[in-house]
Each structure stands twice: as structure tokens, then as C-alpha cells.
């Protein structure tokens, strides 16, 4: 899976947990910006105006 097999056990663990950490931080920033940009238009569209 995702080419981590060549690393040792600790290397795989650090890379795995690190990948989750990086993704979580990217999602926090990315979705935060997306929510700010889209919440108004989506609310207006759902409200039918």
C-alpha cells in the first residue's frame, strides 16, 4: 500500500502517522477556506433566491 513496504517497522509507522497529520492540517486549512468561500452562495441557492 502506497509504497511504504521498503521501510522498516518504525519508519512505516512514522510515515503513516505523519501522513495522517499532514493530511489533517491540509484539510483544516483547505476546507476552512472552501467553507468561507462557499457557505454564502450555497445557503442562498438552497433558500431558493
Amino acid at each position, binding site marked *: 500500500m502506497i509504497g511504504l513496504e521498503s521501510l522498516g517497522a518504525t519508519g512505516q*509507522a512514522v510515515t503513516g502517522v505523519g501522513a495522517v497529520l499532514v*493530511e*489533517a492540517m491540509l484539510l*483544516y486549512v483547505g476546507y476552512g477556506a472552501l467553507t468561507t468561500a462557499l457557505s454564502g452562495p450555497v445557503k442562498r441557492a*438552497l*433558500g431558493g433566491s
Partner: protein
Amino acid sequence: MAMELFGIAAGQLGLFISFGLLIGTLFGFFGMGGSFLVTPALLVMGYDSTTAVGSGLAFVFGTSVIAALRHRDHGQVDYKLGLMFIVGMTAGIEVGKGVVYYLKALGFADLVVSISYIGLLAIVGLLMLRDARTESSDDDGSALAEKFQSIKIPPMVSIKGGTKVSLWVTLAMAFAIGILSGFLGVGGGFLLMPAMMYGLGVPAAVAVGTDVFQITASGAFGAFTYAQSGALDLTIVLPLLAGSAMGARIGAGATALVNEDDITEYFAAMLLAGSAAVASRNLGNAYDMGIFNQASKVLIFGSALLVSGAVIWASIQSIREDEPAESVHAAD
């Protein structure tokens, strides 16, 4: 050959992102971490118990990092209390993991973890159903809280809000919750919050911040320790997290639009369906009957879809009802 993105089959990627979106919406709305539906869903999909628990813990870690980033400005973290919980929980997680691998060596891990989930989901579901249908009474909880808080085994440690807690009682609580966390792959927030508030008398605001802080640390430790044994599957965790982070924003937004009490009974029913799904999967495996395996998937994914759909539908209805009123005010 199936199409792949980043080494992940496109179908699997879509499935996990969608499921993440559903559980993120639900648990963002109800203010829970969502981990205790991820591990049973993975079990129902046929993953072995160590991968299901290890990946569940990595998912807990990811969601708690996002929650910690959102709570970081609130300043309501008691680091002393958090540290005590981290020490107790990491020790407990190590024991919980040891139990899983011991049972795996005996060939019983999948069965025992599954049965534990059947019980856990059924109990939490029934308690929520009871709370939703009866007038809430905190008498029993208060009596238990007073009993716990009267245990004053020194050394006593001062925490935020002027409360003093016993080091040993705190460590014992954290250790017990850690065993459950390491055994089932859950963050333990649904136990930590009442343990801090009722067991130790910690103010609610401090309990929320400290809970997020310590679940981030113990989730990282739990994910790391399972990953060392090769039981962290990033092809599960990364898409699941991507979906759930978006769902959590939708769910949190919905809390301002929909009364939680209107949906609680459906949510409780979904947890009971999750319990039935894991039971059905085990029956299917025991008697080699595919129909039970199919039924388990329909139960767990179908109920999550229905309840998150109900949250979104109720939110849209609420926006539509508010819109004409706003238009009238605008015209004034």
C-alpha cells in the same frame, strides 16, 4: 484492471470518502469523534481486527488534530490534567493492543472484538434512546460524581477552575479508558468527557479542550504502535479522513439550524443497526451464508446514509423556512 489514484482503487477511494462524509456529518452534528462506527464498518467490510482497530485509531488521530486546531484559540486546555490522562491512556492502549494481539495468536481476535462492538453499540444506542424518550434526570449521575470526587488519594493536583484531583484516581481512570481505546480503536471521548466532568469534577469547558488535546496525543500513540505492526492501512484512513473532515463542517453547521433532540432517536437507531450489522457479519462468517454479510453492509451503510440524510434534509428545510422571513425583513 481497476483505475487507481495514488495507489488506491478508485472504487475504494470513492467508498471511503463517501462513508467519511456520512459519519463526519453525523458526528459533527452530535459532537462526537465518530471512531466507534469506523472500526465496526471495517470489520463488516471484511478487514481483520488489527487493521480495523489500527486504522480506526489513525482516523481518531486525524479527526482530533483537526478538532485541536479548531479549539486551539479557546485556551481551555489543562495541560497538567491532559498529561496525566496521556500517561494513563498510553499505558492502557499498550495493554489493549497486547490483548488484541494475544487473542489474534489464539485465533479469537476478530470474534472477541466483534462481540465487544455488538455490546458497545447496543448499550450506547439503548442509553441514547432512553435519554431521548424520558425526561432527563441527573440525580444518579450526581450521586456517582460525588462518590468519585470524595476519593482523595494523595497526591492531589490542582487544575484549572480551582478543582483538585487525585493523581492516582486520574491515572486509573485514564488507564481503564486506554485499555478500551487500544482494544477497540476508539478515541474514548464518549467516556473521557463524563469521566472528567462527573468523575473528577472538571468544569465542562476545560474538559472539552483537555479531551481534544489528550485524544490527539493518545490517538497518535495508538496509531503509531499499531502501525509498527503493519496494521495501519493508509488506503483506508486518508480517504476516510478527507470525507469526514468535510462532513464534520456540514454537521457542525447543521447544529445551528436543526434541534438535536429531533434526530437523536434516529441516531440511536443507527447505533443499534451498527450493532446488528456486526452480529450479522459474524453469523454470515460462522454459517458461511453470504446473505448475512450483504445484510450487514446494508445495515451499517444504509442507516448512516439515512440518518445523515435526515440531518441534511432538516437543515435545508430550516434554511428554506428562514429565507422568506429574511426576505420580508429585507423588503422592510
